[in-house]
């Protein structure tokens, strides 16, 4: 199978590689770049665990090919903060509200919420809940995530 050159900006760094056309962005990130924050929960676009931001938009990286990211800007959960010592405000809310248990689904939830929170006009709680219905979590019953949304949207009920 022939290989294609791909390069893009990942969490502020320029990266590149040679990939088969069929390589998903998720596999490229996880296996070729060692960026294991996005997770493979279903590989068919339903669970949301693989969500990353491409050009600021939340995207299911299991449904996007690595070659399609060529020349774009990609953000993953690893890029949200400087590392485990400093949390992004939404990560901090997740911690305070016990919005994760096993944490496998969490990077996906975070990326979608971050994208929503950055968008203008900022969505209200109902819109955020609607968007998060595309993310599956088997551990928490969503209780903590719903509290995170409450707190994020306190000013715009």
């Amino acid at each position, binding site marked *: 199978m022939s290989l294609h050159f791909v390069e893009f900006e990942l969490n502020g760094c320029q990266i590149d590689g040679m990939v088969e056309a069929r390589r998903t962005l998720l596999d490229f990130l996880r296996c070729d770049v060692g960026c294991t924050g996005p997770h493979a929960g279903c590989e068919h676009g339903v669970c949301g665990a693989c969500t990353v931001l491409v050009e600021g938009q939340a995207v299911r990286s299991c449904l996007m090919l690595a070659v399609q990211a060529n020349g774009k800007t990609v953000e993953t959960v690893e890029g949200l903060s400087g590392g*485990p010592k400093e949390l992004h405000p939404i990560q901090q809310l997740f911690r305070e509200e016990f919005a994760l248990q096993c944490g496998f689904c969490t990077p996906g939830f975070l990326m979608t919420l971050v994208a929503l929170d950055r968008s203008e006009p900022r969505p209200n709680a109902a819109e955020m809940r609607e968007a998060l*219905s595309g993310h599956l979590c*088997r551990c928490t019953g*969503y209780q903590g995530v719903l509290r995170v949304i409450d707190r994020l949207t306190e000013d715009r009920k």
Partner: protein
Amino acid sequence: MSEHPIATGARFVGKRIQRKEDRRLLTGRGTYIDDVVVAGMLHAAFVRSNVARGQILRLDIAQARALPGVFAVYIAADLDQLGCQPGNPVFDMPGCPSPDNGLLARTDVRFVGDPVAIVLATTRAIAEDAVALVEVDYRAEAPVIGIAAAQTMPPVHPHLPDNLVNAMDSGRDDEIDAIFASAAHVVEDTIRNCRQAHMPMETRGLVAAPDGTGELTVHAACQSPHLSALHIATAFNMNQHQVRVIGKDVGGGFGLKMSPQRDDMAVIAAAILAGRPVKWIEDRLENLIAGGQSREDQMSVRLAFDADHRLLAADVEYDCDFGAYPYATQSSASLVTPMFPGPYRLPRYRWKAKGWYTNTSGLVPYRGPWMLEMFAREAMFDVAAREMGADSIELRRKNIIGKPDQPFQTAAGFVLADISPRETMELAVSAIDVPAFRRDQAHAREQGRYLGLGLANGIEPTTVSFGYFASDMAHVRIEANGRVTAMTTTFSQGHGTVTSLAQVIAERLGVPFEDVTVVEGDSSQIGFGSGAGGSRQAVAGGGAAIKASDLLREKIQRIAAHAYNASPEAVRIENGVITIEGAPEVRSSVAEIAQIAYVAPDRLPHDMEMGLESQYRYRPPPMVLANATHACICEVDVETGKVSILRWVAGSDCGELINPAIVEGQIAGGVVQGIGGVLFEHLRYDEDGQPLAVTLKDYLLPTGLDVPRIEYQHMCTPSSTPGGFKGVGEGGAMISPPTLVNAIADALAPFGKRWLNMPLSPDRIVCALEQ
């Protein structure tokens, strides 16, 4: 909470302390099984049967073998060389013969998904390409699908006489027939659950790395590294020390990852044969068709009441579909029939239980595997109340036991103690405000809207301590710098055990919470223990942590007393600082005592051993009971069949809570899994044995839009264990189905039907209403 006076100050137990693991997990730095990379690792993919039952006529691996990047393609005969013993040393019941068809199907296949070959290649993509090149021809035969078929059709496993896994009963009881014959009311029906999947967001997976000298390291998404190591060593006839199982972050388990299954063993066998590390990560399709299933069971219930609605007798018959290769050949009764009497006065009880092999994915226990006892009893109580014209809460009030009634022996022989069923029921009932709801309900019905209230009571047996589950262990040490490291046999798949146990240990030792690090997840560290399973970690792990910490605290007190010429009882340890009662001038620290213990043996009491560490193997009582009452209000749209849950009250008595936020997380997760099981989740097979749920678009899980905000109400009746803890892992998943089903039935009461066949998905509700 203590048997001993505590010489420490700050309380960490009972506080909503933020979890230690969260920073790592929130920043994408977790290490789940697919994040593990071992040098020289190959990737495995299975060739799986696409027929439910049939003979293998031809199996051709030549083309697959020739694909560049393919290292090996193994079939049954290859793996059979290793003589892996099937069976589960932990959970198999003596006397039940195990199904044996090798780690890969030998001559015939017995469910869709049955593995017939395993490919090892340099990448997963190449392995999958090779799988597509393997040619298999089958002669398909009529499969055994469903419990009714299992009773009459030829055996799924040809070497067994029939499809019965096992049968048990409570024995002959003629008197009970007389009770039923003369009872004022007899109510009967069958509750049919539906096949569900555990569906952790992370599928199964492992990396098996043989090291060339006969030792094996297995990185596993498991629930207990120690239990897995024991199982693997037994299966491959290795010494325990030759197998090391390491688990880091695990993306949920719910029972699925309790025991290594046939697929896991096949990967290990392939790695040993190849002499190379092998990674296998199950994909979601495999998970849905071959990962294991649960809840395909049914219970026929007959209840007898006197004229005053007091329960006189119960007669139940339980049947469970074990699939083709269950995780263990085990009692079909398990806890289902023994727990059926629940928290009620039931004078007379008779039961039968049977398990059946079918040509479907194997039974693997799913969070609250015996949940049908609670489901069937509580749903039938509501059926009975409606039939007798009684209020369902009043009916329960007449029959339930409360704290003053204990100890109480149930009709199945269990002794109930330290629980509060009547009390949690009253708590939940008052939180709901039933009279106000009934007014709303009547008003809504006038407008053609259907609201319902459902309630259920249940007892959760936790920390059932038998066999390899009889003990857990903690090793606690204070390092020379005063920091605390604890190694425990607990293991988290999201449970937050490293946080909860650090709270316990910090409190018992009198050191800052931040100074305590709990390490778990490696079978080569400390002795055997059973990890997660059976809602045991708070009681068993917590008990071991308390006992080990107390031993260590006593040693600190003795060293300090010796160094400062005081009595050990006068030594106080608070926040890592040591003071002596009656000697205000003395101010030492745990770190200083650690220095003495490790580097200044002359300052130790003579004949005291150096070092500051302790370990304790704790044996919990045979069973620790928790109890709960849940109540919910829902609305059913009779046009679309959609059920909206408007309120959910969870009244629980889980004894002393170590971290209430973690406890509530366990309750919530279980409740929502139970809601999913009632409303959406169904692993269906067609009559040819083809699975119909093969993606997460077919197998629907609840989303954030489907769930209520849970209102928690806690009561505390401490258990008789150190710490007073109880388990809480499974109760939510067992009690939420009857709670919700009772609410739906209450909402739809005007239609005069019973709602006992799961799932109550929108289409099925609409169909049933139209009939």
